[in-house]
């Protein structure tokens, strides 16, 4: 039975919020420092890792929320990344005058325009995808895996129909190219921008999730869908909204990824898929904070090991996943589903 009534009413058990996973990032960075040796190399690698992590986070956040809310795992999420990236090649292709200009403002407008178009198109296609591909197979995991995979195949082929099967260049605007010096360390400008953009997205998302009613509903829905419906809210509508926003964010991530790689291929999405799954598994399926930490860990580790032991870098993600799951079988921040 429970503790005596008086103490149960008077005192709240003092369980500290779980900050341990958060500590992983600084610990990883600090462990890497002596191994790398040079502080300036370390700074460069850390920024590269964070930039990569931020982009992955932006892409994966929608995926983890969609899963959390409706147990829908979209194996076709990668299509939105590719779609966003290819949209950016078209938009920036039309605005070459702006991107090759030396004016930071014009560059910025061009990139923002590309991002906005990519997000709207990816979001719009996401709405259709949800309606046509996902809704008919709610609650049937096996069919869901198959059908979203089918959506991925068809989506990738359609992208080839529109943009052709070859790689397309996606060049950084003039002002975004090159590096700046932080002490001795050269940090690519674009990586810095990615980190800032990623932090902004994370901040907005956290704010929405904690300070708005929609955010509360999403968090509540991830935890207990039935109870949210029993309180009188239509969770399906919420889900569609999250799906569309998640797709739009994947589109944004696609633009950022494409600019990072300076070129885009139709297979981009399916290549990133594995990485996304690893990140959301590490984070704890459905947890945005977990997804953020997972993405940063993946990004940092990939860059550190890529420098220290390139062969291991190819497996660093899997290794990371195995270690995390051995420590916490349900991920860093398990979402206490009922």
């Amino acid at each position, binding site marked *: 039975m429970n503790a005596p009534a008086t103490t149960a009413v008077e005192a709240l058990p003092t369980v500290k919020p779980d900050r341990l996973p958060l500590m992983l990032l600084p610990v990883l960075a600090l462990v890497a420092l002596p191994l790398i040796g040079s502080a300036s190399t370390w700074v460069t690698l850390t920024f590269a890792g964070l930039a990569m992590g931020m982009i992955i986070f932006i892409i994966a956040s929608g995926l983890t929320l969609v*899963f959390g809310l409706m*147990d829908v*795992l979209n*194996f076709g999420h990668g299509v939105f990344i590719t779609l966003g990236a290819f949209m950016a090649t078209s938009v920036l292709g039309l605005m070459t005058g702006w991107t090759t200009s030396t004016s930071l403002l014009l560059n910025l407008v061009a990139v923002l325009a590309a991002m906005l178009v990519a997000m709207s198109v990816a979001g719009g296609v996401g709405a259709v995808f949800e309606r046509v*591909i996902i809704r*008919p*197979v709610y609650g049937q*995991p*096996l*069919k*869901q*895996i*198959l*059908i979203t*995979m*089918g*959506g991925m*195949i*068809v989506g990738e*082929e*359609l992208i*080839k*129909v*529109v943009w052709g*099967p070859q790689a397309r260049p996606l060049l950084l605007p003039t002002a975004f190219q090159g590096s700046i010096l932080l002490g001795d360390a050269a940090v690519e400008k674009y990586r810095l921008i990615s980190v800032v953009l990623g932090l902004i997205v994370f901040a907005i998302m956290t704010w929405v999730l904690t300070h708005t009613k929609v955010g509360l509903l999403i968090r509540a829905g991830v935890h207990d869908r039935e109870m949210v419906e029993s309180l009188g809210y239509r969770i399906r509508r919420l889900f569609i909204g999250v799906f569309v926003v998640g797709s739009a964010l994947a589109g944004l991530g696609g633009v950022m990824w494409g600019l990072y790689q300076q070129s885009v291929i139709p297979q981009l999405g*399916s290549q990133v*898929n*594995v990485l996304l*799954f*690893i990140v959301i*598994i590490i984070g704890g399926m459905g947890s945005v904070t977990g997804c953020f930490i997972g993405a940063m860990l993946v990004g940092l580790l990939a860059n550190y090991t890529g420098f220290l032991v390139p*062969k291991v870098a*190819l*497996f660093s*993600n*899997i290794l990371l*996943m195995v270690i995390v799951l051995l420590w916490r079988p349900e991920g860093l921040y398990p979402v206490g589903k009922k």
Partner: protein
Amino acid sequence: MLNHLLSGDLPRSRVLAVVLVIILAGLLLTPFIFPGAKALNVAAKICYFIVLVASFDLLLGYTGIVSFAHTMFFGIGAYGIAIALTHMGPTWTGVAVGVAGALVISLALSLLIGLFSLRVKAMFYAMITLAVASAFMTMASQFSDITGGEDGLSFKVPELLTPGFSLREAPFLGVSLDGKLITFYLLIAVTVVLFLLMLRIVNSPFGRVLQAIRENEFRAEALGYRTVSYRTSSNVLSAMFATLAGALMALWMRYNGPDTSLSFEIMIDLLLMVVIGGMGTLYGAVVGAAIFIVAQNYLQELMKVASGAATNVPLLRDLVHPDRWLLWLGLLFILSVYKFPAGIVGKLRLGAWRKRTAQPGA
């Protein structure tokens, strides 16, 4: 006799039976009616893919598990042959060692993955196998000392199986009786044996339990079946057959590399074949593999014609471009999952069943 051979699991549709006979006859007669290396290669590919797709159906269709690591076992089989024959020379011992070694590795790996992760939900299993498979592929292309890396391994097969070997000087019905031909018929024979073996497995009491678990895991568990061990066994069996399919492929191609046996594209192809053919029917593997591989090799020709005719219609021209054949098969795949989850075979059987019930006594 036939009933016994097919383990009592007959096609149960006249059309399906005819289709199966046509496929078998087509395969057997390929060297005689479709001259040229391409046709023979297509026919051989259909054979080892029948084994591979059927083994995947064992897992997906009969047990309800989605694994994206199936090509990994296919690759292990192919690498087993490739590595053994590269190091031991073109001997039958090498073939035996390669197959045995590959089977042992597949057994250990599938057991490990199964025990660790078959307890979790279907979606986690799908994700974890996807990650494992991609790691395995990276590994295969990295350890180039053993695997030949991205370039893969070309090797010699035992003399009996080489094109240089000849049964008799004069060609028979215009076909030279060389080692390639022997390999081809051996391949068909092994395919038939393996397929019948799988048919036996799914129709055994063990196979019935698998299907019961797929239908209602909770209930099967309540009836006292240890579902995890059944699912793990199915996982292992399916991996074994996939390994053998890989070995067959390597022996036929006399080459193996990451792109021919491990790539994600093959995994996607597998999914398409098993779903379009018909999950949980095993015959679907035959139909799916035959249709898909023929389409893969000849649909493009057809689309070339269509594309040529539509040169002046911009979007249509791109949609029917020969390279976009996968688009159409992908759409067919989605349609299959929605409309006829038991695929072509299920559709045919349903039709036959309706006919039978509509005409009682007929």
